[in-house]
């Protein structure tokens, strides 16, 4: 039974990946990509990696899909007369690349069969040292305590990616405001869903210390709420970056760095966090930064302004 489910997911992934890149229209490709992301999340869950499954569903399928769709809308706005179906350019490189990739998969598959199933040395060390941190989710232990430099630099990568995107879309004319949310149900729906996304994201954040969850997943869910507000016209893209936008944008990096450096003053090693409260504080700050970055990327702007319905 398990084997049947697993092979169904595996075959489905291959089929969906093929559909995503060979789809007749870009829109179809994006939809397939989102479905692929959700199936991938299922696969992660089957493999016993619920943290990855959450991240894949929230970021891989959710936020990435939304960003691709908004990019597609921009494309259509810029070139309304261009056919939505991309020309199928056949590359002579396609076959060699496919063969190379197939042999790579074969080698890795063979290797994976031959590798002993024992957890890696670093993984064992994480389990041995987890109790000292006060956390019970090893993933959060690795991300925030043992290898927190990686996480800190990842947040810097996100900032760099956002600033790079900002450099590109500065000259773009602002997308025209989406239709105002004057449908009678929109206000009521937002009043339910937006607080719910906040609640879920805070739950994910707090749950991260002992079960799957954490700042990245929480940030993605929070960003979904922001995206909803943009789609409903309650938040509008604005130019310029006021302090009220810039501060939360860099808050995660700032709080993380300052706490990590401050520990050096007390004689502790760099980035050795003083306790569980620091983990929560950093995660909360990172969640805000991640969510705002994603929302701004979706809006395609450096700032947001509120629009009263």
């Amino acid at each position, binding site marked *: 039974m398990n084997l049947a489910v697993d092979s169904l997911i595996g075959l489905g992934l291959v089929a969906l990946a093929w559909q995503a890149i060979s789809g007749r229209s870009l829109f179809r490709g994006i939809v397939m990509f989102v479905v692929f992301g959700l199936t991938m999340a299922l696969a992660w869950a089957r493999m016993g990696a619920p943290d990855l499954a959450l991240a894949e569903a929230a970021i891989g399928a959710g936020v990435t899909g939304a960003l691709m769709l908004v990019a597609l809308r921009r494309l259509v706005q810029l070139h309304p007369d261009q056919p939505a179906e991309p020309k199928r350019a056949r590359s002579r490189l396609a076959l060699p690349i496919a063969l190379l990739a197939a042999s790579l998969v074969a080698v890795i598959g063979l290797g994976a069969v031959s590798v002993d199933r024992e957890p890696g040395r*670093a993984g064992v060390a994480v389990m041995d040292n987890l109790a000292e941190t006060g956390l019970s989710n090893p993933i959060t232990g690795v991300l925030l305590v043992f290898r927190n430099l990686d996480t800190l630099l990842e947040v810097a990568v996100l900032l760099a990616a956002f600033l790079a995107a900002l*450099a590109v879309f500065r000259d773009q004319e602002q997308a025209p405001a989406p239709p105002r949310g004057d449908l009678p149900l929109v206000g009521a729906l937002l009043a339910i869903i937006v607080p719910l996304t906040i609640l879920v994201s805070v739950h994910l954040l707090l749950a991260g210390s002992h079960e799957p969850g954490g700042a990245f997943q929480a940030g993605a869910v929070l960003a979904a709420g922001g995206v909803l507000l943009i789609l409903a016209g309650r938040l509008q893209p604005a130019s310029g970056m006021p302090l009220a936008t810039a501060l939360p944008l860099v808050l995660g990096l700032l709080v993380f760095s300052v706490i990590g450096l401050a520990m050096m003053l007390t004689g502790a090693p760099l980035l050795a966090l003083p306790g569980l409260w620091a983990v929560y504080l950093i995660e909360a700050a990172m969640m805000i930064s991640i969510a705002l970055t994603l929302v701004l990327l979706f809006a395609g702007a450096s700032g947001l302004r509120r629009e009263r319905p």
Partner: protein
Amino acid sequence: MTEAALAGLVFLPLLGACLLLLVPRQWRTALVLLVVVPLPVLLLPITAVVWQQQAVQMAVAGHALPLGIVWRVDALSLLLLWLNAFLLVFVGLQALTRFPPATPAGLRFWPLWLLLAAGIHALLLSADLFNLYVTLELVTLAGIGLIATSNRPAALQAAMRYLLLALMASLLYLLGVGLIYAEIGTLDLYEAGNLLEPGLLPATAMVLMITGLLVKAAIFPLHAWLPAAHGNAPGPVSALLSAIVVKVSIYIVWRLWFWTAEGWPMPALELFLGLLGAGAILYGSALALVQKRLKMVIAYSTVAQLGYLMLIFPLASLLAWQAAGFHLVSHGLAKAALFVAAGNILASLGTDRLRRLAGLDQRLPLDVFTLALASVSLMGLPPSGGFIGKWLFLQAAWEQGAWGWMALIALGGLLAAAYLFRILALTCFHPRSHGHSSRLREPPSRASLAGLLLALAAIGLGFASAPILTMLASAWPGVIAP
């Protein structure tokens, strides 16, 4: 003290980038200076320790291996840190005139610039395979953002192409890291060197990682993205990208090859990598000869000069090691000088088409002088730094009786002389009719000075070779020459 200095190298620019977005605009210039100027000072205590003990090691967050991440600085990483500090200060001098921090353009530019600096520093410090991946991402994305700060469509297109290829390369590298972790359960580069035995899976991992890195380092024939990206980026960005950003990927390849995969029998692969270098030297030089724009000549010259860094694999001796390390630094300085001067010329003429440069030596004497000085080092004339690098390469090839490589190195120098003299001849060519009455905006003297100082450093490196070579020798992992 050393630990604080190491932390400062990464966190000073990182915090600076954050604060730039927050502080009022009139403080931004001061903030940039406050971040960039102390960087060379931070290197002093680290240099002192490396000089005495050959390496500095520090467990980030205090977790021992294999649990945590370790920073490790030896002479090679130190040399690159010094190069980067130099570039940040002097190229930064030009960038300050080109992108004044108080303007909106400056606000787009400087946070990315500082993030790039933090990324390069974190990369050079790190001894952890996965951490290296994260830092590579930071370096790549910040670099791409900086290319995109130029508002020309060609630059945006080049940035996009660079982005796609670099992301694919990152994935290849990451896949390799995953395979290595599955095999030995540690991510530390040096520990992996002790634990990893040659085999199908480790070899696949190595091939994947090195392929990815060679894409990022634009080694022939994976260089296709580089000329457009470096040739169309704003002047100071081209300088930093060509002088250090592509080199750090090669640096990781060296680390993987000579430390993690130390002692693996791979003679065919050594030769193959060397041949890639040969292809880079010949192809890059040939294309540099036929370019129509100054910055494209310099960009193709980067493709060619990067090829020398691959010769270390087939030669694999202490001399070749010193040669490659020295060439890396001297090329970095000379190339930065060339791009800074070219950026000034482009900004003042509005074009860098070679046929429009005639008579430029009279109108922009300082920038043309910089071009000439940097060219001297790049084509390897004594007593410049470039000469020492190429001379050591020749010596290393001579020592092993590798006549083919000797001929290649000599030919590469000749070709470099050809394409660089072509530029100099064109700029100093005076047609009888003085038809160049086109407007000319004098570049800010600080920008010209920045290029000149870099070029002088590239020449002066030739006089300061002894301590650098001694230190480099201390970092040689000691692979016996075949």
